């Protein structure tokens, strides 16, 4: 072969390699990069696609339809059947203001847009559905309705959970907003100083007050109960700073169980100081403080100060004051762990995802992690039972049901105390755990929050036993 021919063939090979490279890159792009590009929010097709697709329905645990879409004159319309009731859980999907709640988190399932595999494309060619997948929630619609009624006129959050599985049975945050009217009221809702858009139960960070004593008590149990009986005089002096009890006359001689039942501040302050910052922090962090809770909705983390504290701050932390902040969901998970013999169930809202034809795509699997020993959990269960039987939480008591719980009355910068109650029932075989937070209620947890919790627990147990 002469050199001219050789060179011609060299150039031909170079050009062909160029084309082969293009083919290779195009295939690579389609397989590994295309999905990310498609999901870019600037891609107008996302909205066009959604306009053509009927978003899937969302139902409660018994199949009650909460949200669905229907085609009105060829245009998809989202029908929020219970409007305000699910404004934080389900959220909204608005072209102008985006998405929130489950509408946002499960968007790709609801529009069935994330299955761009070759096989699915073929199936779609043959059987174009244009209808998204459906979600089945763990929510009990009746309990949700009841919880909302109980919270009306309040500011705060109430959540009920199955402590064995982590299924959220009801989740309410007030004030809430009308999803249907959100577009018209956007400015007034988004600028309202009471922040109705905030899901207080999972995003609000609050001073826990005495409900934090569950954690301090766990530390006391873990260190082996002190032999000596504590003498409560109504106040204790830490680092020259006097911390007083709610009842300044003093509780007299107390063991842990009794101190917990009457929520004695001086007892837990002294125990926290004896325990030290490191151990208290370790306990808090083992119970998801300073950690992001992996949930079906965006959560905020509870905060326990990481840097070493001065003695007064440490003392305050022991009774849930000072710089400690928590979310209602986090406290509910801790109570669930107590109820569940030391295993903390991961909370979830979505039970399963299924296609329009009813085929199950994904089911939630119960996950839990061990956060305390069975013995520790049982000790705490007994102590929490005492709170409701004879202590600060008697307002949560129900005839014939052994309710366990803990009250909290948290001082905060507003001057009006937060009222807390966390608890579960029945003691022997816990079916439901609840948290009630009344923000800046200006009353005690036992007086304001415990009755709401009682009604939720009683309603839930009736529902479940039927």
């Amino acid at each position, binding site marked *: 072969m002469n050199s001219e021919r050789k060179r011609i063939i060299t150039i031909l090979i170079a050009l062909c390699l*160029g084309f082969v490279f293009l083919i290779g890159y*195009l295939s690579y792009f*389609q397989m590994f990069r295309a999905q990310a590009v498609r999901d870019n929010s*600037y891609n107008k097709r996302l909205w066009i696609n959604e306009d053509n697709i009927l978003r899937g329905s969302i139902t409660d645990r018994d199949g009650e339809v909460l949200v669905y879409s229907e085609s009105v004159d060829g245009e998809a319309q989202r029908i929020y059947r219970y409007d305000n009731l699910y404004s934080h859980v389900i959220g909204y999907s608005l072209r102008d203001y985006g998405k929130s709640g489950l509408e946002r988190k499960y968007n790709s399932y609801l529009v069935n847009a994330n299955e761009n595999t*070759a096989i699915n494309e073929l199936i779609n060619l043959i059987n174009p559905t244009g209808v998204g997948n459906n979600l089945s929630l763990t929510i009990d619609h009746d309990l949700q309705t009841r919880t909302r009624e109980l919270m009306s006129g309040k500011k705060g959050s109430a959540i009920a959970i199955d402590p064995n599985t982590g299924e959220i049975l009801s989740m309410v945050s007030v004030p809430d907003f009308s999803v249907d009217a959100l577009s018209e009221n956007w400015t007034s809702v988004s600028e309202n100083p009471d922040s109705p858009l905030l899901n207080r139960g999972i995003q609000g960070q609050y001073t826990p007050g005495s409900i934090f004593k569950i954690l301090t008590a766990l530390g006391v149990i873990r260190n082996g109960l002190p032999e000596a009986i504590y003498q409560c005089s109504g106040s204790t002096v830490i680092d020259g700073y006097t911390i007083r009890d709610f009842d300044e006359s003093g509780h007299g001689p107390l063991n842990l169980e009794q101190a917990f039942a009457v929520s004695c501040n001086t007892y837990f302050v002294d125990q926290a100081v004896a325990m030290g910052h490191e151990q208290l922090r370790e306990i808090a962090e083992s119970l998801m403080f300073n950690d992001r809770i992996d949930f079906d909705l965006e959560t905020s983390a509870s905060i326990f100060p990481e840097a070493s504290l001065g003695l007064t701050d440490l003392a305050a932390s022991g009774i849930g004051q000072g710089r400690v902040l928590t979310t209602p969901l986090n406290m509910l998970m801790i109570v669930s762990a107590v109820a569940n013999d030391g295993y903390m169930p991961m909370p979830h809202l979505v039970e399963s995802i299924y296609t329009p034809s009813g085929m199950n795509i994904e089911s939630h699997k119960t996950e839990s992690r061990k956060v305390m020993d069975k013995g520790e959990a049982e000790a705490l269960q007994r102590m929490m039972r005492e709170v409701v039987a004879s202590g600060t939480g008697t307002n949560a008591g129900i005839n014939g049901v052994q309710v366990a719980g803990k009250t909290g009355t948290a001082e905060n910068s507003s001057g009006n105390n937060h009222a807390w109650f966390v608890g579960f029932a029945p003691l022997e075989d816990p079916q439901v755990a609840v948290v009630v937070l009344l923000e800046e209620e200006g009353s005690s947890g036992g007086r304001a929050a415990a009755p709401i919790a009682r009604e939720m627990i009683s309603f839930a147990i009736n529902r479940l036993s039927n």
Partner: protein
Amino acid sequence: MNERLKGKAPRKLLFLFEILSLSLIFLYSWEGIQTETYVIAVGLVLLIYFSNYLLGRISKGDSYIFLIVCMLISIGIIMIYRISPDLGLKQLMWLTFGIAMFFAAYFATRYISFWNRMTVLYLAASYLLFAATLIMGSRTHGAINWITIAGVSVQPAEITKIILVFLLAAFYGGDEKYRRIRNAELILMIVVYSFIGLLFLQRDLGTAVIFFGVFTGIQYIYSEDRRLIWANLGLAAAGGVAGYLLFDHVKVRVTTWLDPWPHINDKGYQITQSLFAISEGGFFGTGLGRGNPSFIPLSYNDFIFSAISEEMGIFTGIGVIMLFMLLVYRGFKIALRQENLFFRIVALGISMVFGIQAFIIIGGVMKVIPLTGLTLPFVSYGGTSVVTSFIALGILQGASEKRGKAGIVDE
């Protein structure tokens, strides 16, 4: 085997493709079928059938390149019609005219023998066209590359591309007397670089790269002074860097190639819209009429490949790339078989123009290389592009026939 028989099986496949894609067009516009739809359908089938039939009768040369191109124009016009029925009809008109020019160019190469002795004419015509563009040119999409003569807009650079091929072929394979001038090859290189410089001034970067590519390819094969090739490559690298530093419009291309996402609303708009379209299509496409190729600016023109990928899938996209690969392969095969040196170089040059142009624009719209505005030959909408591409193809058809030393076809 008889050459004419060989073309028959692929021709049948081509018709099968025509019928399938036209039925898609009918399905797509079922609710509002207009006269245009019938015109397109009947017109396209008749045009392709008769031109193939005619070519089979008159040319003993290559029987594949025209078939390959028929496939490309079919994909192109169906996509264009789907984006805009008006443009689809106009494209059919341009294709008809283009195919007429294909035959004209074919006969001109077949019966005229002095093509290899017109070096000076090619030079003069090139500079004249550049001058006309600079003086009368109007700017579209950042490049000054259109002139309007008697109401018809033409892109002179498209014509200059073919003239460049003839100039190179005449220099290396025709007029011996010019090659005997001292430093003749160096002078040729300077001339080509002056073309490339003028294209830079017109901001027609894509065509500039084609000129460079074709020249470098031919120079690599035929230059006697191998040092010049290295000089050429070095100069090109230096020129590229200088262009990047000196011209903002070059800088913009590189920036939006490396990362277009921060500029999604302005200078990165085109390329990101193109990527959205390609990623939307997946492997099999959204289906004709079921995607949104009109979101891409110039979807019927520079970005036709992205539009095809969106609605027909990257399988069709890969098909288009392979058709160009086949076209280049056939073109090179024609060159290897051609005994006449001038026509050998012409065949190589034209094949390289097709190949490099397709590579640059397809690579550009999928962000493999910086995006430069070019049409996808035979597929994109556009009068000048279609007509000049068919002229080039006619010349390639002519170059595929057996010739004597004089260049006339041996009957």
